[in-house]
């Protein structure tokens, strides 16, 4: 140990490692982003992808027919989908990190504890029953109401979850998971019921909502989800330090000067916004919010500032990579992306449960 290290008390080794890990996450995201633009029925070389992006930035498109075709593939077909994957992945992972901080529990995943299903239920209900309101509501408002409805659904689910699972500031894992499973099952059943009675025209398939898909990505959807994700990420940095202190316990955080109720309220609203927007544009995609923050806590430490930055980068990278897999493995058919994330996430969840058998009680 160097003298300078000791003089600063707080670990520099961890700080240095944290920077390396964040840089690694950013590189992974860039790689996944370029791969997602390059890979598909038509494979385009990464160098070509970069030059198309660069030209596209200035509104220039290739002159030859092959160049023009590649530009359409990259800019009009793959880019919106990739950008949506980045937004949804970052949003879900950061939402998971914040949710876990508030419940002081690393098992709180928006999908597992019923928040995404709550958002999906509200979105489906809006699509089916909102059409009755259509004649009276301006078209513009109708177009933008879906993420708001999903936000309301996820907000209600979190508030219910908090009521059911938390007693005197303490959340036991058993209560959290029981309440979450009950909420998820109930919301899922109600969603199924509504879809069953609805006509096909009103809804895409049930699998979109239960297992997620980025298949319908358009710039319009990107525009719907982006503000919510940005609000979530920006505000979560603001409450990061409060969430660190909250890890000591609610009473202890209060002793230290943190306004616990305010932090919790802010966290609940931004998580609902992030999850609601993600679900509105891509259905329920599970496990991203569980796996990503946990990997980062293991490697870079539990401080929420790095956890949020890392979760945004790694979550975006993971979902982008999962989407490449989902749309190429059975091409021309598409695998629901939730199947891919569950294949990665479920074994991870089981490992997590076994590893922490004692300490989560």
């Amino acid at each position: 140990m160097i003298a300078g290290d000791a003089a600063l008390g707080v670990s520099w080794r961890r700080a240095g490692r944290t920077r390396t890990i964040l840089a690694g996450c950013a590189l992974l995201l860039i790689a996944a982003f370029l791969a997602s633009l390059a890979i598909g029925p038509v494979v385009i070389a990464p160098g070509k992808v970069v030059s198309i992006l660069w030209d596209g930035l200035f509104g220039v498109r290739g002159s030859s027919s092959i160049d023009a075709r590649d530009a359409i593939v990259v800019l009009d077909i793959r880019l919106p989908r990739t950008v949506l994957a980045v937004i949804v992945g970052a949003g879900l992972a950061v939402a998971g990190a914040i949710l876990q901080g508030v419940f002081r529990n690393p098992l709180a995943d928006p999908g597992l504890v019923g928040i995404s299903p709550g958002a999906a239920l509200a979105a489906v209900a809006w699509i089916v029953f909102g059409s009755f309101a259509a004649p009276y509501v301006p078209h513009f408002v109708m177009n933008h109401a879906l993420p708001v409805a999903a936000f309301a659904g996820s907000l209600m689910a979190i508030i219910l979850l908090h009521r059911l699972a938390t007693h005197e500031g303490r959340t036991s894992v058993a209560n959290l998971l029981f309440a979450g499973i009950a909420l998820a099952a109930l919301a899922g059943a109600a969603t199924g019921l509504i879809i069953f009675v609805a006509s096909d025209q009103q809804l895409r398939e049930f699998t979109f909502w239960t297992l997620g898909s980025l298949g319908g990505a358009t710039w319009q959807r990107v525009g719907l989800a982006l503000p919510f994700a940005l609000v979530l990420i920006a505000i979560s940095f603001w409450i990061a330090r409060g969430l660190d202190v909250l890890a000591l316990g609610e009473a202890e955080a209060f002793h230290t000067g943190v306004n616990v109720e305010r932090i919790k309220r802010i966290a609940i609203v931004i998580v609902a916004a992030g999850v609601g927007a993600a679900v509105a544009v891509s259905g329920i995609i599970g496990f991203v919010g569980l796996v990503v923050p946990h990997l980062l806590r293991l490697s870079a430490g539990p401080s929420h500032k790095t956890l949020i930055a890392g979760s945004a980068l790694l979550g975006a990278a993971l979902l982008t990579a999962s989407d490449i897999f989902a749309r190429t493995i059975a091409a021309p058919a598409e695998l629901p992306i939730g199947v891919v994330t569950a294949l990665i996430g479920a074994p991870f969840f089981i490992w997590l449960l076994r590893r922490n058998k004692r300490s989560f009680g």
Partner: protein
Amino acid sequence: MGPNGAGKSTLMKVMAGERRYDSGSVTLDGASLSQWDAGALARKRAVLPQSVVVAFPFLAAEIVALGLPQYFPRREGAALAERALIEVDMLRAREQVYDTLSGGERQRVQLARVLVQLWANGGSGYLLLDEPTASLDLPHQLATLRIARGHAAAGGGVLAVLHDLNLAVMAADEIVAMREGRVIARGVPAEIVTDDLIHALYGVKARVGAVPSGPFLLPQSIFS
């Protein structure tokens, strides 16, 4: 001091501003506690609870630094954290994950966090300690009370719940004895700690002696 369930911790929680009270009034600097917000209270007092379970794998040094105010200068804060870790004899464990420490070590790390909070806010605030010596070995019990005495000598105030009566009479300027939610005696240890008080508090017949310098207790006298 007082038996289990006498209301010592409850009283401390009320004084910390953590728990609402049904009757009476609690004031700090002449203003009712309900008029203080969390941040203002944190600048006036720090609280060491009986035990703290930390949700995520923070390092001991990171836990200590959580006692700092949000926008405290980084270098200065790190220096305070290090001083506090030295004070509680936990500097060697600063890079260990809090959860992997023993009960007594965790308690000392928490004490360091609480000290950092006081120091960062001027160093003359109130220190509320709920059974700070409960899981400590003898030398660290003494060290903890020495830190508390030092804080009082430096112009701060200390309120501690202690079960070890010998330590309590040794360290305290004033003792408050509680039973069934009421204060039954308060005053200078040498005056109020008597055979009768011990019997009234605990139902134990013990003899209070005063041989070395001040009152002391022989639990063994129960059996003679």
